[in-house]
């Protein structure tokens, strides 16, 4: 692929001074985060540290109280058509998959491309089949979500997000609702996406994935980004006490 004229380090996601409150609860505090095009950032931290909320602020499923979010240089618009257009460029994969229950897997994937991108149905189906092939569940195209295992549903959800040809993919704890034996089939898809240069922000508890695929690990605690660094550095020698404490709790087994 030809190098981008604007440079390989063009910021794809840029968060400045983000603050968010749920009522009196201050859940995100002065978040600054820049993710370059092609970068894979893994966000880790204890429950309630604000990781998921941060992720959801990036496509405005949650509205920030203060601060700005830019996607590929464009500030997130307020509600309305402009926001819908921008969301189409930001893929999201949810913890609970959220596949559309009344539609087949194939129709789940073609809905966005046909209705938002206005791609003709036969072409959209073709692309959807190619994506299902890629995530390894082409044989499930005509099934309904409830007929699939959790791992298969999550791979279908990834295919649905990819079908929009997003500029960046957000993963909000994509493997947390899965049985342990299904975690890897999802992680494998994510690792291959990362290797292909997809810009990804991944909230997860899978430290193995962070080691394998992340360019950068961001550690959050109590609504703040406490530490940020290369995965090898972060796991081998966390700089802050809180990160050391967190790692000692999750890595001791």
């Amino acid at each position, binding site marked *: 692929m030809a190098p981008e004229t604007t440079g390989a380090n063009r910021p794809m996601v840029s968060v400045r001074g983000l603050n968010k409150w749920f009522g009196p609860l201050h859940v995100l505090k002065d978040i600054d985060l820049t993710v370059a095009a092609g970068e894979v950032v893994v966000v880790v931290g204890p429950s309630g540290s604000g990781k998921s909320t941060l992720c959801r602020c990036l496509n405005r499923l949650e509205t920030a109280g203060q601060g700005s979010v830019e996607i590929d240089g464009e500030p997130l618009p307020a509600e309305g058509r402009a926001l*819908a257009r921008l969301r189409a460029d930001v893929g999201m994969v949810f913890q609970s998959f959220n596949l559309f229950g*009344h539609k087949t897997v194939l129709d789940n994937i073609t809905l966005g491309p046909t209705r938002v991108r206005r791609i003709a149905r036969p072409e959209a189906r073709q692309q959807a089949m190619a994506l299902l092939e890629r995530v390894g569940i082409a044989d499930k195209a005509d099934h309904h979500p409830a007929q699939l295992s959790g791992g298969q549903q999550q791979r279908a959800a990834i295919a649905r997000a990819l079908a929009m040809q997003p500029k960046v993919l957000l993963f909000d704890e994509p493997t947390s609702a899965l049985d342990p034996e299904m975690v890897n089939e999802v992680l494998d898809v994510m690792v291959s996406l990362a290797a292909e240069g997809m810009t990804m922000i991944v909230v997860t508890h899978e430290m193995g994935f962070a080691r394998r695929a992340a360019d950068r690990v961001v550690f959050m605690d109590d609504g703040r980004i406490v530490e940020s660094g290369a995965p090898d550095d972060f796991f081998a020698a966390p700089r802050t006490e809180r990160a050391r404490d967190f790692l000692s709790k999750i890595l001791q087994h």
Partner: protein
Amino acid sequence: MEALTAHLSELGHGLVTTVELTVVTTVGAMLLGIVVATLRIAPVPLLRAIGTAYVEVFQNLPLLALLVLFVFALPTIGITFPLFTSAAIVIAVYEGAYLAEAIRAGINTVGVGQAEAARAIGLTFGQSLRHVILPQGLRAVIQPIGNICIALLMNTSLAAAVGVVELTQAANTVNLVEAQPIAVFTGAGLAYMLLALIIGQVTGLLERRLAIVR
């Protein structure tokens, strides 16, 4: 029995009018119900208020009073419709309030994650509603919608009070001639029952056909 067979054509016309009124009104009430339910879940407070006001007004007034008001009050300010049209409008508006509440209940059964996923792929509010929320929400309340349609069928008999010659009015007229209320109204009642059974069957069929695999 002779009281019925001697007046089959009048009663038949009444039955046809009842069916027409029921079909037209059901379609109108469904459309209104979907619109009002949508208003009630809209992100704009003013729209929600309009939806709530609609439901509160039309659920809390007797249908007969609405019919009489519409048919006899509107002409005093120069607005007149044919009687059938008037009755159809009033019943649709009235039943629309009940359908809106049933549909809203259905919408509430659809998980919030479905709406988030719809928005996340770039669907607008309207598109999410049309392609994701309503298809699932309506499926969840086919049975209560069927019940409201049966109630609607029964309520079409109130149109008799404002001069629409539907089945009840036809039966009434026949009875004035024959003075055989038991035969005449049993016959009419059986016809209503048959129509209600058909609605029930259609409801059951739709429910089985459209069930979401879970």
